[in-house]
């Protein structure tokens, strides 16, 4: 059997991490193909229900990444994101969502190398955790199927 290829979704802000990932490209730094990037104006925009949505549609791991503290293009969006994540994480733990599969990080527009590293380590970590079948099975399609 070929190695398990985890599906990773990255929720990133437009100003820092999206631009950082662009820089990874411009610098031609290679990383794992497993990630799909979703662009948000700011991490503050990220509605955490989207994380459960992503798991339900087959993601094995999620990266949430935006500007470093104090560097938010909109001053404080990333702080609000953090704060809400704290609350949401408790909820996840309560609901039995595996929060090890959600990686939070800061990648600035200048950190192309860091972006590649984060994707690669997340892919490896999630590969170790295996497919998130327990969650995928519960997604509606599977139940009805």
């Amino acid at each position, binding site marked *: 059997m070929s190695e398990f*290829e985890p*599906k990773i*979704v990255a929720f990133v802000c*437009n*100003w*820092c991490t*999206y*631009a950082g*990932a*662009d820089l*990874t*490209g*411009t610098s*031609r*730094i*290679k*990383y794992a*193909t497993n990630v*799909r*990037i*979703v*662009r*948000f*104006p*700011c991490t*503050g*925009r*990220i*509605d*955490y229900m*989207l994380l459960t*949505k*992503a798991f339900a*549609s*087959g*993601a094995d791991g999620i990266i949430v990444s935006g500007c470093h503290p*104090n*560097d*938010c*293009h*909109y*001053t*404080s*969006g990333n702080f*609000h*994101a953090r704060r*809400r994540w704290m609350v949401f994480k408790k909820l996840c733990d309560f609901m039995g969502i595996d929060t090890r599969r959600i990686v939070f990080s800061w990648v*600035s*527009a*200048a950190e192309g190398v860091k972006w*590649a590293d984060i994707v690669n380590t997340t892919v490896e970590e999630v590969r170790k955790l295996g497919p998130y079948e327990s969650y995928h099975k519960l997604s509606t399609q599977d139940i009805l199927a």
Partner: protein
Amino acid sequence: MARIGVFICHCGENISATVDCPKVSEVAAKFPGVAFSTDYKYMCSDPGQSLVVNAIKEHKLTGIVVSACSPRMHEPTFRRACAEGGLNPYQCEMANIREHCSWVHEKGDKTDQKAIDIVRMMVEKVKRNNALLPIKVPVTKTALVIGGGVAGIQAALDIANAGHKVIMVERDPSIGGHMSQLSETFPTLDCSQCILTPRMVEVAQNPNIKLYTYAEIESVEGFVGNFNVKIRKKAKSVDETLCNGCGMCTTKCPNKKNPNEFELGMGNRPAIYVPFPQAVPNIPVIDKTQCTYYKNGKCKICEKVCQPKAIRFDQEDEIIEVAVGAIALCTGFDIKKTDFFPEYGYGKYKDIIDGLQFERLASASGPTSGEIRRPSDGQVPKKIVFVACAGSRDPAKGIEYCSKICCMYTAKHAILYKHKVHDGQAYIFYMDIRAAGKNYDEFTRRAIEEDQAQYIRGRVSRIYERDGKLIVVGADTLMNAQTVEIEADMVVLATAGVANKGAEELAQKLHVSYDQHKFFSEAHPKLKPVETNTAGIYLAGACQSPKDIPESVAAASGVAGKIACLFANSELTREPLIAMVDRQAPPMYSSCTGCFLCQPVCPYNAIEREEVKDRNGNLVRELAFINPGLCQGCGTCVAVCKSKSIDIEGYTNLQMYAEVDALLNS
């Protein structure tokens, strides 16, 4: 029914070398709702754009997805093409298969699959895009220039001469910046003061420029065209409207032994002082930390001798509020002090000085009236060592970059030294001579050929003092790395140029980004070198990275040009990608519960309370309302609203969920 067009770009070989573009196009053609799909060599070229325009018309498309480079690069291009084809420009999305795919992966099925996924996701998104109209906002045609060094001066004068109002805020008691401290300037050796002072005076006299010295930025709110800025004007303890600059106070102040900042500690100044004779404005300030009266309630001599009665011991800081349309950041840089170098004695040897101190020694108006004398005992140094790259290009010390100006000013120092000490010998320890500029290399050659500077290629390992001499130990890497020891009378370290104090806090107040060394970041290193990522805020001079005078001035004129362009229109068109609280007629129906959780999270105070009244004028309920002029579209309010009453254009709930759904259900 959606009719989406998909355009896969090869970007020459940039994409097609790793992604099978025709295959992606074929697969995309089968996505539900896709009416047209094709691939092409250069989508952004004229024929590429025509392809889009024609396809929209021919296939009656309702939206397009251009799968190419990053939207941060070409989104405006294709929105324009979209509009040309007769669609609303916001019916266009870009799928980033270059930066996020072809450039970061190897050729293969996985990469193709990723490209397909990215396209599918954008197809699902664009189906849900709304037609949007650009927002127009008025522009306040006044510019704020922060920092009054040569860059700030140039920017202010250019903008003022274009006919616009300028407010200049300078932290020190005088404008002039580092250039006012320099003796003569490379590569022509003109006297720095001689060329700068007239420009400083012009700033003071230009009716379009309002100058605040001894002032700092307290806060900045608003957005391009409409910034509200609070300026803290620190108390000078002198009434500027009365003071005539006679200088009686400074001559009579008995408290004279305070280290002179302008002379970098190599001289003293009174507690009430003007930083240097040509200061603009020529109005003294009292240093409250040193004045005898402020410290123990006695003295007031300055008050007695001041004829116009301008001294104000009870003066307080003043906060001034101004409205401006654009901001030029010109806060310059600083250099590392000699105590940064453990191996060169942690700054404990008096005769090891930094480059700016040497400028003061060489300056006719400096503490030695232009004679090169060493600080410890006033002797004229006969052997002098210059150490280039002191702290620069030194990752171990946390500064990996080249400070760019020091090769040139070190050559200048060697020349000036030889002009003043004819029997003296200058040695320069260097690693590379970086003199790329018009007449720059010729200048360093002149130091070597005409003024006998000895260049030794190697870094100095250690400097210590013995019997009044400084022993400089280096190696000559062009001579088998043999050790070279020079018994010098004085050593000048060309210390690294670093970000100015307070740069980080200022950047945070203005929401502009900065790099790991706290230098402000330009929006694009090649194509937007004077813009920041925040619209309406520009940067010039050494606050971006160490720069010499010609470069600082060029950038400043660039900024002035940009601001003049901005001010050329009285209205500004803004992207309509902003948030809205839902409203449905009839009268003011909304799912908003009036909890106002959204209000405090908005960084721009854009969320207001709107009162809903019945026919009799009684208050029925309060709803959130977003001021479209203030909202910058961060979307934080969208995420906090529990009743999902807010949505944000360009990133609507519907779009985001559709994207996530489309990504993985392949």
